[in-house]
């Protein structure tokens, strides 16, 4: 177990390192940082001055090492666009994104798991078709459009929810519905196929023959095993929610990391963007690792 975790941890560190290189080089080659700071109208001389002042005239590898050693010491750099330390910008915005991610994950769980169970318990019936229809539609619906539709319907025509903003938890309900919907199809399908498989297993037949049926059978015997893969997929989906927050946060004007990312990109603010890319990637990796460990912990068959 310990060795498994150590191995996985090494991979995570290696990937994180690679991604930090990719993010840094990609962003610093695709755009001239000196040009970005000096602005569109700056002439050659001004750009050169900026280049010298910020040290952009040194080789990119040197700048990367400087940036990365700073990162390790907790120095995330300074944003050109906001004129603030990047870590401060990010700290301010984490609560909104975290709230959104967790609330939308709850939406996914509350919709996908019961629906997947119902579909698996009564395959090829109306319920099953309905669940499949939901999954197919949710996959084809553009996220931002769903958000705007909900605003039109539930905030403008029937003013039940606020149009946008992030002041109270109430403001987060519509955005969570939107972001949660995007994870419903994969989770629901996995729940359905997993449960169908388990229901055909020998030990379920044994439990049936002992007189268990209905909800008791589902909760005490089949659901436990069928949930194992779902749990790890949920952890992965939570990672997607951080990265996917860009669209939802800009539709609903939530001041989270996603909106910060969009604003930084539009402001060509490389220091903030590269940290955000790194943070999103690292969160995803960490959640994946967590999912793997959780799986081994929950399923004794995987322990050796």
């Amino acid at each position: 177990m310990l060795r498994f975790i150590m191995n996985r941890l090494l991979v995570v560190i290696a990937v994180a390192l690679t991604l930090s290189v990719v993010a840094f080089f990609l962003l610093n080659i695709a755009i001239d940082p000196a040009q970005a700071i000096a602005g569109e109208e700056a002439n050659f001389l001004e750009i050169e001055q900026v280049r010298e002042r910020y040290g952009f005239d040194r080789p990119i590898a040197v700048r990367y090492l400087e940036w990365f050693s700073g990162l390790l010491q907790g120095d995330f750099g300074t944003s050109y666009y906001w004129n603030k330390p990047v870590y401060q910008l990010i700290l301010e915005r984490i609560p909104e994104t975290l709230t959104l991610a967790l609330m939308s994950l709850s939406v996914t769980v509350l919709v996908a798991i019961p629906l997947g169970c119902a579909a698996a318990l009564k395959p090829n019936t109306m319920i099953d078709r309905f669940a499949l229809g939901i999954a197919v539609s949710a996959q084809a619906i553009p996220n931002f459009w769903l958000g705007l539709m909900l605003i039109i319907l539930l905030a403008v025509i029937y003013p039940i929810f606020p149009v946008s903003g992030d002041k109270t938890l109430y403001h987060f309900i519509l955005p969570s519905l939107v972001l949660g919907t995007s994870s419903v199809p994969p989770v629901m399908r996995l729940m359905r196929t997993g449960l169908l498989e388990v229901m055909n297993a020998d030990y379920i037949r044994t439990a049936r023959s002992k007189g268990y049926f209905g909800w008791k059978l589902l909760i005490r015997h089949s659901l436990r095993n069928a949930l194992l893969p779902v749990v790890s997929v949920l952890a992965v989906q939570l990672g997607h929610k951080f990265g996917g927050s860009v669209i939802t946060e800009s539709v609903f004007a939530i001041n989270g990391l996603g909106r910060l990312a969009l604003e930084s990109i539009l402001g060509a603010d490389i220091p903030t963007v590269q940290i955000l890319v790194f943070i999103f990637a690292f969160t995803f990796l960490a959640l994946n690792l967590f999912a793997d460990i959780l799986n081994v912990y929950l399923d004794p068959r995987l322990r050796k």
Partner: protein
Amino acid sequence: MNIINKLTAKKDLRDMTPSEVMLRKARTHKGFKFGLGLLLVIAFLGFIAPLFISVSPFEQDLSMRLLPPAWVDGGTWQHWLGTDGNGRDYLIRILYGARISMTIGLGAACVGMLIGVTLGIIAGFFGGWVDQVVNYILTCQLALPGLLLAMTIVFLVGPSILVVIVVIGALHWTLFLVVARAATKRIRSLDYVTAAQAIGASKFQIMTRDVLPNLKNQIIVIFTLEVGVAILSEASLSFLGVGIQPPTPSWGLLIAEGKDALFYQPWLIILPGIALFLLVLSINMMGDGIRDITDPESNIE
């Protein structure tokens, strides 16, 4: 009598060639037929219909701004779906949007297929450390926040249709890789690959002539689904302002432009969204259908 009919029907099936079986499955698969039909209608509306309409999607008429669709009060049959904030005919803009979406979807899926299938075949064929290197690249790609990176690169490089295609394609190849690798691993231990090796075929020949053609069915399924994903990505990028730029009528961009009129002219958002939904829905249903049809295990029914 009924039973005899069933028996003869089954016998027919046994005499059929694989392609005849597939064709028959395709004819009886409701989802596939619906998806293909809807897709053909949208393709016709996007590529053929505009040839017969003389209105330009860029022509502005400021005296006719923000007209609602014809069937709503205040609409005219001169502009069936109304006009946008600059007085441009909305129907023709939405029709042109279908072209943009389909072009980008197909293009990006091709780019992704090229990267993913190549890496997948190489990893599956050679195995060993090559496979591990490819697996490492895959892990890195999966961890990258795709949308965020796409936004950044498109914005920094300068948005154009070609850039959007390449960037979206370069970020959506993981499924191709996983599927191609698994299938290649299975195929490379089959007898005909050994036979090809025995008569002296080079590795490259085996990969392109023996392995690749046998991946066709699985790749087509992934390709179809990735076209849908790419179309939604393009719409998201354009919606956020870092994809297709005005005045080109991309559906994502139309929705972004309509957002300002959210409170009083919601159809500016509703209409392109429905178009987008129907296009992706048709493609996904077709992809699911092809998966069922090409799967030799699936039942005909």
